[in-house]
């Protein structure tokens, strides 16, 4: 199992879990759209960019193609990160 933090809450996920999938299981949305709508991953394969979130402080991270790593911090990407 891998321990990481999603929006401040500690979660534990199986090895190999993608960040976008861990966020879905934790009921966390990935980002807030430019008009303020909550969004989660759509395509699951790195194309649609809806799964962008802040991973270890880096905004615009494509969470569906990132594997969860121990100690990772993941946060919903807020409206302050627009484009």
């Amino acid at each position, binding site marked *: 199992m891998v321990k990481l933090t999603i929006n401040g809450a500690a979660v534990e996920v199986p090895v190999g879990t993608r960040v976008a999938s861990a966020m879905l299981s934790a009921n966390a949305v990935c980002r807030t759209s430019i008009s303020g709508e909550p969004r989660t991953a759509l395509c699951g394969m790195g194309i649609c960019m809806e799964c962008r979130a802040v991973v*270890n402080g880096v905004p615009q991270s494509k969470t569906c193609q990132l594997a969860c790593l121990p100690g990772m911090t993941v946060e919903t990407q807020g409206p302050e990160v627009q484009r």
Partner: protein
Amino acid sequence: MSGTFNPGPLHSESQALNMFMKPQPITQIADVVVVGAGPAGIAAATTAARCGRSVLVIDDNPAPGGQIWRQGVPSLRKFDAEGVTRDRAVERMLAAGVRVASGCRVIDTPERATLRAYREEDGAVLHVLYGRLILATGARERFLPFPGWTLPGVFGAGGLQALVKGGYDVAGKRIVVAGTGPLLLAVAAHLRDYGAKVVTIAEQASAAKLALFSAAMLGNPAKLMQGAGYRGRVIGTPYLTGTWPAGAIAGDNGLLRAVKLNNGKRVWEEPCDILACGFHLVANTELPALLGCELSGDFVKVDASQQTSQKGIYCAGEPTGIAGLDAALVQGEIAGLAAAGQPTKHLEKRAAAGRKFAAGLARTFALRPELRTMAAPDTVFCRCEDVQTASLAGHHSWTEAKLQTRCGMGPCQGRICGPAAEAVFGWKNASVRQPIFPTPVGALCSNDSIEETV
């Protein structure tokens, strides 16, 4: 894995800085470079390596397999036949001496016979010099806007399957699978394997078209058995033909509560927790187009040896026509042989069977006209820029709509709303520009490089 490309340790504490720093690029040189590690790419790389060529595969996923052979967390199913097939194929590829650069996305072509790739995990930049190039960039799902399609809880069909393989726990969730294409049944079967309750499968193609398709498949028993196998795994689930989504409805808590389905005679609500919806596939032709490969309609034009209009650049799998796994494998093998200067004639018959299957798929799962009017005026059409459907009406071309509304100008670069706009408005997106994926400026500015020869 000894064949896995690894330029050094990760510096996770400095990841935030990588957006602004100039990372030192790594140069890799190979006789044959393959873009994409799905079935076509794996077959091409293995074949070229067995012919004695040095081969490097660049792939944007964390592990080889592509979409149909995607690696994932285990399901409830005891025997994972797809996983076994994939593991064998990957083992054979690595045993042939192929090197794989996983997690690397090709962004542009800074000079002739050179590709540049970006690795998001640590901000590394690769310069890849190729003798021959094989493009196996696969396909993505086609999405069409309908009211509520941006709600959390609405996913692509293949999209949800990928996220579930990636560890999204759907055990006990009620799921409606909708859209079109052979993928729907496969996705439904896989979701069941992960403990989900698939309540309905809604296929927009008519029963008559599907019957014709099945009859044509009588000459292809393996494909027929595969379809029957998936159907058998979701035997308790209604498979509705001539039915499409009319809207996704959120409850008071903002979560998906139901999906509205339409069969042309009536519209009804199907309660569910998740909607998985995709309208067949769209070829990923951005990189081939950037390299100057001629397209024929939506697909890359290739000759009998899978060579594109650009000499020394080959293309295999879905970008040449949506034809599925078997066609991808044989095309990959042909491209691998051709790139190594070997004859390919003995494989042409199998390749022709794949093209016939692709034509059947295209006919059967062609979009019905009703799908063009699913979106309401206030339905978001472009999800990156939140452009509503009403603001696109009245424009005459994709370019005009982009300039006036910012539709297609966001980070997906029109990969989602572009094919939707083509289906709904008939606009063709003709241009592709580098970088073909959003890339931090620091990565684009890097120059000096360390050289590694494969």
